[in-house]
């Protein structure tokens, strides 16, 4: 029996505090098939990061929701051995060098990780020369590349990327685009949240648009003209203002 890579049904999330409660997601439902590259776009505060965290099992959704990754619950240990995640927040430490950090993660993956894969990815992201530097000595963009490498270590079946191009310079964006194309060809499912609409158009086969915590559109990207997403984005913002 084959399962969808991601199945999210009626996902609602309310952040509760002593004084108030804020609804971050309302009844979000979608599925992603294995091998798809799906983008998640929406304005700031739309609920993209909350959705990613729920899909990764870091946050519980409200009662009544159902989330599965290849038919399994996202916080199961086995699921984490074939799930990659590039976060928008990074860990820094002066005691740990880049290669040591990557090798450590590779070791945590057990038989799935290998030192040769670390070398291969360092080369792909032109970071071989920085492998001995500590995590605190790196620029924001370089550190983001380390996070991207982390996401693809092992043999992930699905990778979640949160603003993967946010701090990257143009050559690094080209490297990433090439790298993602290679991963896509290998059948890796990629789900990524981004504000960079051009990148989303270039990379994704499908785009989900989230606004005010609701999934408002699900666009297949095949045959779309360049600039389609920007137009769609503007249209949704106008509708939002009118509403």
């Amino acid at each position: 029996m084959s399962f969808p890579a991601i199945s999210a049904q009626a996902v609602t999330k309310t952040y509760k505090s002593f004084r108030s409660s804020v609804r971050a997601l309302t009844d979000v439902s979608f599925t992603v098939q294995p091998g798809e590259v799906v983008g998640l776009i929406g304005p700031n505060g739309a609920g993209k990061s909350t959705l990613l965290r729920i899909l990764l099992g870091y946050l519980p959704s409200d009662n009544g929701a159902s989330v599965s990754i290849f038919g399994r619950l996202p916080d199961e240990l086995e699921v984490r051995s074939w799930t990659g995640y590039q976060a928008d927040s990074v860990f820094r430490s002066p005691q740990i060098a880049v290669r040591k950090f990557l090798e450590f993660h590779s070791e945590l993956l057990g038989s799935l990780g290998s030192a040769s894969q670390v070398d291969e990815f360092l080369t792909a992201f032109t970071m071989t020369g920085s492998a001995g530097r500590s995590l605190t000595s790196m620029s924001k963009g370089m550190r983001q590349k380390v996070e991207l490498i982390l996401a693809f270590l092992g043999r992930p079946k699905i990778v979640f990327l949160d603003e993967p191009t946010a701090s990257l310079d143009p050559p690094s964006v080209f490297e990433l685009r090439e790298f993602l194309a290679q991963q896509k060809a290998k059948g890796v499912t990629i789900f990524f949240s981004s504000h960079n609409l051009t990148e989303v158009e270039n990379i994704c086969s499908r785009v989900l648009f989230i606004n005010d915590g609701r999934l408002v559109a699900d666009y297949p990207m095949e045959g779309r003209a360049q600039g389609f997403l920007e137009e769609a984005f503007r249209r949704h913002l106008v509708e939002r203002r009118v509403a």
Partner: protein
Amino acid sequence: MSGRFLTLMRMELRRLMTPVGIAMPIFMLALTGLFAVLEARSAKNVDATRLLSNLISGFTLPFIAPLLGGGMVAWDVKDHWLRTLLMRPMTRTEYLMSRILALYFLTALSVVVITVIAIVAAGAIAEKEIAWNLGRFLPMLLFLLCHGYMIVLLMALLSCWTPGIFNVAMLIFWAIASASVGALVGSFKWDSAILTVGRDFLFPSGFLDAVETMSREGGDIWPHLVWGIASAFGFTGVTIWSINRMNVEGGTE
């Protein structure tokens, strides 16, 4: 222990090797050694068990563990270390135990090294004979190290619920408050059976009480040890429950 757990332990030890993590034991060694020499000069010999029960248990251990591990879990959440680890097939309990054991290992190693060097240095500098009395010294040292585990454990528990190094402040407040209440009960309500028993539950100090009982060479240490072991298991359970309640991207839900 799984290979993954040992890998994590090694990394946790590496993360503790900060300039502060290296300087603090050296600083505490210098201070402990100084106090040991001063005490040795006014005594007829260097009594290793007395130094252990007074200086090491009352000064060195209560300072070194919080200095090395203040804010441990809270900072791991804040600097995204915990989230980074949970990307991998790793349970929160594995993270917590590796963090506690790595800190405990460094604390225990520091305490043992500081104790031995301070005693030997005090004997040499004060030119006094050292009375090791190993039959009492070694069990006392063992119980003291068990108390060190309790301190590290309580810091981990409190840092699951409080930001930054606030856990250290809470631990100090807790220890002082319980000692004060305990002293009041001992002085004014010593004839109340309920309050006297209740005093033991103010702070999980069973192992420390065992050390003090041994240093006085009187009394039964077993009730203290049983209380110490029970509290070690109990608080380990509460700490594991706490870490499993945490939101790894921002604090306790």
